[in-house]
């Protein structure tokens, strides 16, 4: 076992029960709000050119790499090397998919035409990615998960 393996949720035994911090808040979520927490996220420091996976650069030497949870092991291995420091941050991030610019405007003052970006969303640091149309992915620290989910559902209710 590598000495940072204790961070990787994909290395758990089959009978260990994985639960999302958003589960309870989303029990009564409106249509169109989807839990994306079961996603792998890697913190990569060093040479962040040409990395495999969905790459979001924060600085010239720091990036987040996202990939499906099932591919975590493979991507983790591919990222290691070339003097890079790779830390599996998967367990630290919760995620949501939402729809609509107006909804987003009620959650964040990030410029929605300048995504992906890291900034404040519902008063919490978040990674915001825009997909086709008006679909947005939000990733934020899992300990704020319930809080952010509540804010998102509340904002959606205000637009209903």
């Amino acid at each position, binding site marked *: *076992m590598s*000495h*940072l*393996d*204790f*961070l*990787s*949720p994909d*290395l*758990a*035994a*089959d*009978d*260990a*029960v*994985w*639960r*999302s*911090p958003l589960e*309870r808040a989303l029990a009564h979520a409106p249509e169109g709000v989807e839990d994306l*927490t079961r996603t792998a996220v890697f*913190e990569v*420091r*060093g040479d962040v050119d040409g990395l495999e996976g969905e790459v979001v650069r924060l600085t010239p030497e720091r990036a987040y790499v996202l990939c499906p949870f099932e591919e975590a092991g493979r991507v983790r291995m591919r990222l290691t090397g070339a003097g890079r*420091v790779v*830390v*599996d*941050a*998967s*367990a*630290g*991030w919760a995620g949501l998919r939402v729809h609509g610019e*107006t909804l987003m*405007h*009620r959650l*964040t*003052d*990030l*410029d929605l035409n300048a995504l992906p970006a890291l900034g404040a969303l*519902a*008063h*919490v640091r978040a990674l915001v990615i825009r997909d086709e149309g008006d679909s947005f992915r939000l990733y934020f*620290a*899992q*300990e*704020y*998960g*319930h*809080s*952010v989910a*509540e*804010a998102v559902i*509340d*904002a959606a209710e*205000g637009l209903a």
Partner: protein
Amino acid sequence: MRLEPQQGERIDRSHEVSFTFHGASVRGFEGDTLASALYAEGQRIFSRSFKYHRPRGLLCCRGTCPNCMVQVDGTPNVRACVTPIREGASVEAQNVWGSLDHDLLAITDKIGGPFTPVGFYYRTMIRPRRAWPLYEKFLRNVAGLGKVDKHAGRASRYDVEHRHAEVLVIGGGESGQAAAREAAAEGRHTVLVDNGPDPIELEGVETIQGTALGTFEGGLVPVDAGLVLYRFRAGHVVVAAGAVEQPLLFPGNDLVGVVLPEAVRRLVGRWSLRPGTRAVVISADDGGLDTLPYLERAGTEIAEVVDLRETRVHEIAAQGRGGRLASVELDGLKVGCDLLVVSGGRQPAYALLAHAGARVEYDDGRGIFVPTDLPPGIEVVGPAAGETGDAAIPAATYNGAAKKGKCFVCICEDVTDKDVKRAIAEGFDSIELAKRYTTVTMGPCQGKLCHVPSIRLYARENETDEATIGTTTARPPWQPVELGLLAGRPHEPAQRTAIHHRHKELGAKMMWTGSWRRPHSYGDPAAEAKNVHDSLGVIDVSTLGKLIVSGPDSAAFLERLYPNRFGDMKAGRIRYGVLNSDAGRIMDDGTLARLSEEDFYVTTTSTGAGAVVEWFEWWNAIWRMDVEIVNVTGALAAVNVAGPNARELMTRLTDLDVSNDAFMYLDAKHAHVAGAPSLLLRIGFVGELGYEIHFPSPYGEHVWNEILAKGADLGVKPFGLEPQRILRLEKMHILVGQDTDSESNVLEASMPWIAKLDKDDFVGKWSLEHVLERGFREQLVGFEMENGVVPAEGGQIVIDGRPGGRVTSARWSNQLDRAIGMAWVPPNLAEEDAELTIKVDGSVEKARVRLRPFFDPEGEHLRT
């Protein structure tokens, strides 16, 4: 009286809407406002004034003056003239004792004058002092305008929406629309904000109905759109806010029937209402004259028209009956009328520019204040820039020799010209002082109708000019705004551990630690603490800050940052570290586990994680060492299992060899625990054999459940922060921020072994050396109470009758059957068995100093 259908009227006569006014039904049409519907049914008095309770009627009809403010469905201070009619609304007058027609408090108008001059509350109702509660009760009942309904509950939902625009145009009049069209034609993303009653449609421009409240740094312009606050960030702001019609100052200028030109245009043009039967018009500009066609259309007889640009008038006085206009005297000529249209010119609405830092200058040719020296990013167009047309400069007042009748400078606050003169006579001669003393401009209109007239009056009374008097500082909001809108949604971010729901289900009493929710206890803190000593306890410590410090320079980096020595740590070992500022003060504490030659795992206090990460990164921004710091606080849940049965429990959860020889005290090991990949730290802050298990947070509930299930027959019980405090205190472990403050250092806090002063350099080294040189001023020690009384935290140590130290922690320990605590004492008392005198609830109690842990000082339980 409702006229025949007019061209351009805004009412839809096929749609009736009704509401109640003091219980009586009022019928109007869709397109009416509350005021126009009431006016149509003959209502002329809409409110009673602030101090004198004088009858007031429609004056501006555009939401500027206070005269039409009413209570609607429990909401106070609603301007009826701009509030659309609403089916079923319940409308009531405010600030009356009795009714609008017969307000008992109008007695202050008749006799109150001598007793209620400007600033009277600085001189009256002071003695006898014991009568204040009576004065206060009286004042609270008569002061203010609307009443807040404390039992209304949450009536509205307010949302905040963040928007961006390349160009934000404020004001949708002619110049605003032109500016917006131009910007859009240049391909710039343009938004137009207008607070008028009619929606505006402009091609290529997004228009919003709302009021811009102010301009702030960074192109921030908040827009009040009723239930939504738009927080605009604009690249460029164009202010086309127009100009405000100004009144004239003369005795009787507040009588019902004295109006500004816009009132005529709206009453006739929008709502098809006759504003009066016989009118006099006195105008310093085209504004008053522009109302003539409207008056003719309405069938109002025009008795006299005075254009102040052509005719010089010295005295104007209005007379009334029961507060309603009956005649106007112009230089001795008396004219009967029930409508007096006055226009003192138009004053540019410069406030939004002043907020942004523009200067305001007096144009003495035209008698207006104009914005100038605009900062970058903002421009002004149209009347707001000073393009207000040809106007005569009105006299400060038109009193002449007239002695009768009140001439109001500020109708919001009921300040007369005599009040202003008195204030100046009392020495309040600068405008900022005079404003605060007279309260002119401090009412609902916020100076829109009274600021410039008052400046003219100050200038005359001080024998100087308006340019010298100047203006007062303009501050947001431009228009009154509901506090609920500024508050937005009631949402504050809170941090929860992955095990949160299990604590709630187990009946935990939750508390805040910073923004974390944590269990204080599960109902019986004393029993929970005892259970840790007797069998087995488990606590959720997921809130601990957790950092990976990785790289060839990681050990050297930590050595430079901490007073401790870490370079000689072997992989798989743990040390307790105390982080220092460069002033040698304790910032935070935690454990450091060396995972490998280049990797360390550092924990911090629960509320310190963010600050510690920033501290580490900041120093490395300066030192640029080959090390990476990664914050994994939320990625890992952590639980601490402690008690004599802890080892047995671990054998049931993991394949790892947890015998004492294989897994020693202060070892760190990797293993799967309950199926989750984990880092196990054998540490012991609660004094018993214990293991801290760190593992990925999605497995939080799973691991917790397994611990409770597999430890059931071992007596496992969860324990919270309160029992943890008792247990830690028994071991005399400091709590950073509780036992230490921003001045404490590791030497005086009795942890000298932490500071390895033989190291070359570390953050805080020089300061600690200085502490040794100057000698200790105080020391942190433990103590035991002789009589078992638990002193309050913060309680004073009494030395020679004076405070000489303080208690930082104190608890009753069932395990030790004693009251124990920690305190800062003078160095001469920092000796085993020294006697302390502690103030407890007014009396004094004795205690003995202890320098070694109260429970198991040798640490045998930890190492078992």
